[in-house]
C-alpha cells in the first residue's frame, strides 16, 4: 500500500468558519493594545497566529510569546514558513530574561523550591528596577503577540509597558489559568493596557470541538465570570460521542488490547495527531513502553510515537506537523490541540482534595481535542473522579 502522507498542515480557516467577532479581531489595527478573551476552541490562538503571520508578511519586528516550550513548538509547526520568514516565537519567561539582561546584566530570581530546581523571576525587584531605568530605548516599532496571556503575571505586562512597549495583541482565557494567584485577570490586563471593558473583544463560539466534546467539556466547566462561557458549536445531537473504556480487570480488555486499538486508530488516520494525556510520569512511561513494543498488524507500520519531556540524550524537539501519537503529562497540555485526545488512567489525577482544580484539569484536557475524546480507566475506580465524571451515557459513552 502507498506510504501515507502523515503531514499535519495548518489549514487557514474558510471565510464561513470565521464569525463576525473573529473578523473584527483579525481587523484590529497593527498598532496599539488589544485584548481578546475567549474560551477553549473559540479561535483565540488562530487569530493570534494570523496576526503573527500578518506581522511577518509586513516585515515588522514582532515576537509571539507563549507559556511553555511545547506550545511554542506547536505554534511554530502550524505557522510554517512564510516566504522565507520564520515564525518568531519564544516562551514568555525565556524572552523576558533575555530582555531584562540586555538592560541590567543579571536577572533577579527567587530561590528554587528544591536544589537545582527552577528559579522563578523575582517580579517585585524587577518592577522596582525597571522604574529606575532612565532610557530603555524606543520600542514603538516592536510588536508582541501573546497567546494564553492569562498565564503571565501582571508584573510582566506592567514591566513591558514601563520599558516602553506599545503594541500588544493578547489573547487570553481566565478559565484556563494554570496558577490563579500568579496569573493575570481580565481586569489586570485591561487596567495595564488602559483598555475599556467594552473594547475587549470576546470570542464566544466554540469552533474547535465537536458538539459531543463541547457537551462533555461543559460538564467540567470551572465557570469564571470574567471569561465568556463558550457557546456550544452548532450541531444536532452528537453522533460520535466521547468514550470511556475500562481495561485490565477480568471481563475487560487487557492493556495490550487497548494499546493495539490505539495503534490501529492512528493507523486508520495517519495524519491525525493523537494526544495521550497521562496523570504522571510513571503512567506516561508505561504507555510509551507498551506503544513502542506492541506487536500489531498495521497497514502503514508503527506510527511516530513521541513524548515530552523527551528521553535523555534525545535532542529532537516534538513534531506537531506530523500525525502519530504523542504521550505527555496532563500539566503540559494547555494551549495544545490534538485531533484525538486519550485521557489515560483518569483515576490517578490529582489533586483529589481540591475539586475545583481537578475539574479544571479535566476541562483543559477535554478541550484539547478537535474530534474525539477517549477516557481510560483501570483498577479500582477513585470515588472522587467517579463523582466528577458525567453519568449520562449520551455525554460519555461507556464502552466494553
Amino acid at each position, binding site marked *: 500500500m502507498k506510504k501515507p502522507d502523515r503531514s499535519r498542515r495548518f489549514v487557514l480557516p474558510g*471565510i464561513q468558519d470565521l464569525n463576525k467577532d473573529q473578523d473584527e479581531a483579525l481587523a484590529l489595527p497593527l498598532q496599539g493594545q488589544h485584548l481578546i478573551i475567549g474560551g477553549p476552541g473559540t479561535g483565540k490562538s488562530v487569530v493570534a497566529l494570523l496576526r503573527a503571520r500578518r506581522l511577518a508578511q509586513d516585515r515588522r519586528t514582532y515576537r509571539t510569546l507563549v507559556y511553555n516550550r511545547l506550545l511554542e513548538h506547536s505554534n511554530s509547526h502550524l505557522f510554517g514558513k512564510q516566504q522565507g520568514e520564520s515564525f518568531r516565537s519564544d516562551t514568555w519567561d525565556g524572552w523576558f530574561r533575555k530582555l531584562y539582561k540586555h538592560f541590567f546584566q543579571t536577572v533577579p530570581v527567587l530561590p528554587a523550591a528544591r536544589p537545582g530546581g527552577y528559579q522563578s523571576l523575582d517580579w517585585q525587584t524587577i518592577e522596582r528596577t525597571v522604574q529606575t531605568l532612565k532610557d530603555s530605548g524606543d520600542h514603538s516599532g516592536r510588536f508582541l503577540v501573546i497567546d494564553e496571556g492569562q498565564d503571565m503575571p501582571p508584573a510582566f505586562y506592567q514591566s513591558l509597558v514601563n520599558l516602553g512597549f506599545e503594541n500588544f495583541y493578547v489573547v487570553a482565557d481566565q478559565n484556563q489559568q494554570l496558577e490563579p494567584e500568579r496569573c493575570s485577570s481580565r481586569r489586570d490586563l485591561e487596567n495595564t493596557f488602559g483598555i475599556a471593558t467594552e473594547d475587549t473583544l470576546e470570542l464566544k463560539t466554540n469552533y474547535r470541538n465537536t458538539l459531543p466534546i463541547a457537551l462533555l467539556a461543559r460538564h467540567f466547566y470551572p465557570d469564571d465570570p470574567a471569561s465568556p462561557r463558550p457557546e456550544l458549536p452548532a450541531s444536532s445531537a452528537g453522533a460520535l460521542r466521547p468514550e470511556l473504556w475500562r481495561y485490565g480487570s477480568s471481563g475487560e480488555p487487557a492493556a495490550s488490547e487497548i494499546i493495539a*486499538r*490505539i495503534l490501529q486508530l492512528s493507523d486508520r488516520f495517519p495524519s491525525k495527531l493523537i494526544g495521550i494525556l497521562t496523570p504522571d510520569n510513571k503512567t506516561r512511561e508505561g504507555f510509551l513502553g507498551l506503544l513502542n513494543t506492541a506487536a500489531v498488524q498495521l497497514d502503514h507500520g508503527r506510527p511516530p510515537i513521541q513524548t515530552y519531556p523527551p528521553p535523555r540524550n534525545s535532542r529532537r524537539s516534538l513534531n506537531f506537523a506530523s500525525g502519530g501519537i504523542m504521550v505527555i503529562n496532563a500539566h503540559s497540555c494547555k494551549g495544545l490541540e490534538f485531533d484525538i485526545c486519550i485521557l489515560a488512567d483518569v483515576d490517578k489525577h490529582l489533586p483529589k482534595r481540591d475539586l475545583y482544580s481537578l475539574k479544571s484539569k479535566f476541562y483543559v484536557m477535554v478541550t484539547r481535542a478537535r474530534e474525539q475524546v477517549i477516557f481510560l480507566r483501570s483498577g479500582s475506580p477513585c470515588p472522587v473522579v467517579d463523582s466528577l465524571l458525567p453519568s449520562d451515557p449520551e455525554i460519555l459513552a461507556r464502552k466494553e
Partner: protein
Amino acid sequence: MIHMPQSTPRRRPRPSRSWYLITNHLNLLYMLAAGLVTDPAGFRGKHYVDSLSAFPGWIPLFRSFPARALAEAVSERKHLRPCVVALDLNGLSGPVRVLSAAGKLRQTRLPRPRFGNDDVCLLVPAPLPLKLFARASFRSDDDLQAFRTAAGDVSNVLLDALPLEKDAALFDSASDAAWPVLQSDLFPGGRAASSTAPSETLPGAQALGGLLAMLYHGGNRSDLASQLFRSLAGQPASPDGLLIEDPVLAQLPHWLRQGRVSDAATMPARLYWGVVSALAAGHEAADGGSAADRVLHYLDAELEQLADEKYQSRLQRLLHDMRSCMGLGAGTLSELLERNKGSFSRPLLLSCLRESSPELLEFSHPELTEAEYVLACILFGVRDGWLRLPAAMRSPALSDVVSTQMACQAQTRQGSLLLLPDSDPLLPLRALLLAPAGQLTALQEKAALHIAQESGWQDCIETVIRAPDGRPFPAMVAENGKLVLPFDALVEKRLCYAAFLRQLGQWPPVAQTIEARARALLNTAVGD
C-alpha cells in the same frame, strides 16, 4: 503550512456602461468564496447589512448609487470597508425589475432594460455567476489593502480573476438619493417571484458546485469521473449517454434531474442517494448540524424501516464501523474496507475516515474500485459544497464553470426565466491526454512531457539514445553522473504513459502554471 495567495488579476475589458453592486469588503469576500453573487440567504448567517438586505431574493444593481447605500454597507461593524463592484450584464437575458425613486416597480428585460433617470436600481433574481464581476473598486489604498489582507487570512478565496482598483472618484460620485427607497414587503413572497414552476427538489447550488469540483479533480485519476464531469459541465455527451455499470453510480443522472433516484433503483442506491440528499439539504438547513450527524441519523432511520435482513445486517455493520472508527473500535483501514464491501458501503465508510475533499483526493487503496472512488468523490463534494473547498481546488477556469453551473441550477430551482452566459469549456487534464487509439498525438506527448519534466516526475520519462547508423554501442564511460559516448548520438525523451497517468491522478495536482502551459500546448481552454 500556511499558503500565501498569489494574485495577478486578469484585466477584463470595461463594459460600455457598468451596473454597480454596493457592498463591503467582507461580503465581497464571502461571495467570491461561495462562487455566487448572492442575496443574504446565500451567506449562511454571515451577511453584513448592505444593499442586498433590502430585497431578499434579488440583487439590486445601480447605475449611479446613493451615498446612503455606501454608508449602509459599513454600518454593522466598524472594521468594514465600502466596496463598489462593477458588473457586466451583457451575457444575461430575461425578465428583471426596475425600482423607481418613487418606489414603484416595473418589469423590463435584459439585455436592454428600460432604465430612466428617475429609476434607482435594477433588481435581478439572485444568484448570479461571478463571471459577471468586471472589477471591484475601493475608496482608498488602505481599504484595498484591508481587502487583500482579509483574503489572505482565509483558505477559500482566490483573487486571481477579479481586477481590483482604488477609485476615489467613483465613491465621490455617489448621489444623495434616498436609500432604501422602500422595504422588501414590495415582494410579499420574500424571495424572487417565480416565472415558471420552481423545482426545489433539485440539488442546491453549493452541493452541485462541490460535486462538480470533485469530479473534475477526481477526473485526473478516473476516466469515469472525467466523463461525468464533462457531461455535467454542459459539454457534449450527456450522462444518460454514458455507460455506467455500477448500479449506485448509475442513478446520478436521475438524482441530478429530479433530486431522487428512479423507481428501478436498488436498495444500496436508494440508501446512498438518500444520504447524498441529506447532505445536500444540510447546506440550506438553518440548524447547521454536522454532516456526520446527518448521515448517521438518516441511516439510523432507514435501518428501522428496512425489512430485508441481508441489507439490515450490512447496514448495521456499516453503522457500527462508521461510529467506532474514530474511537477505539478494532481494525485497520484495510480490515474495515474488507468488512464493508460495495459501492454503497465503502464511500460512506470513507466519509468517516477522511476529513476533507483534498484528503480523499490524496487517498488511495488497492481494494477501492473506480466506481467506489467516484461515489466517494460525489459524497465528499456534496458534503463540503463549493464553499468549503480550498483555493488549491479552485483554478479560475474551474471556478468559472462551477459558478455558472451553480447559478443556473439556483435559477432553475426557483423557476426563474433569466438566462445566464455560458462558461468556457473545460476538461480535466487526463481527458486531454487520453490516447484512445493507443497512441498520443505529438502535441499530447509534448504537453505530457512538459508536465512530467516540470513536475519532476522522473519515473515518467525514459531517455532513448540512438546511434546514428544503428552501429552497436561501444563500452560507455560514466563520468560524474554523465554517460559519454564517442560519437554523435540521437537523444530522445519518451513518456512512460502508465506511470504518467498514475502521477497525474495524485494529489496535490499539477501546479497551475505548469498546467496552463500544457493546456496552451494542447490549444485548449487554459486553466489560468
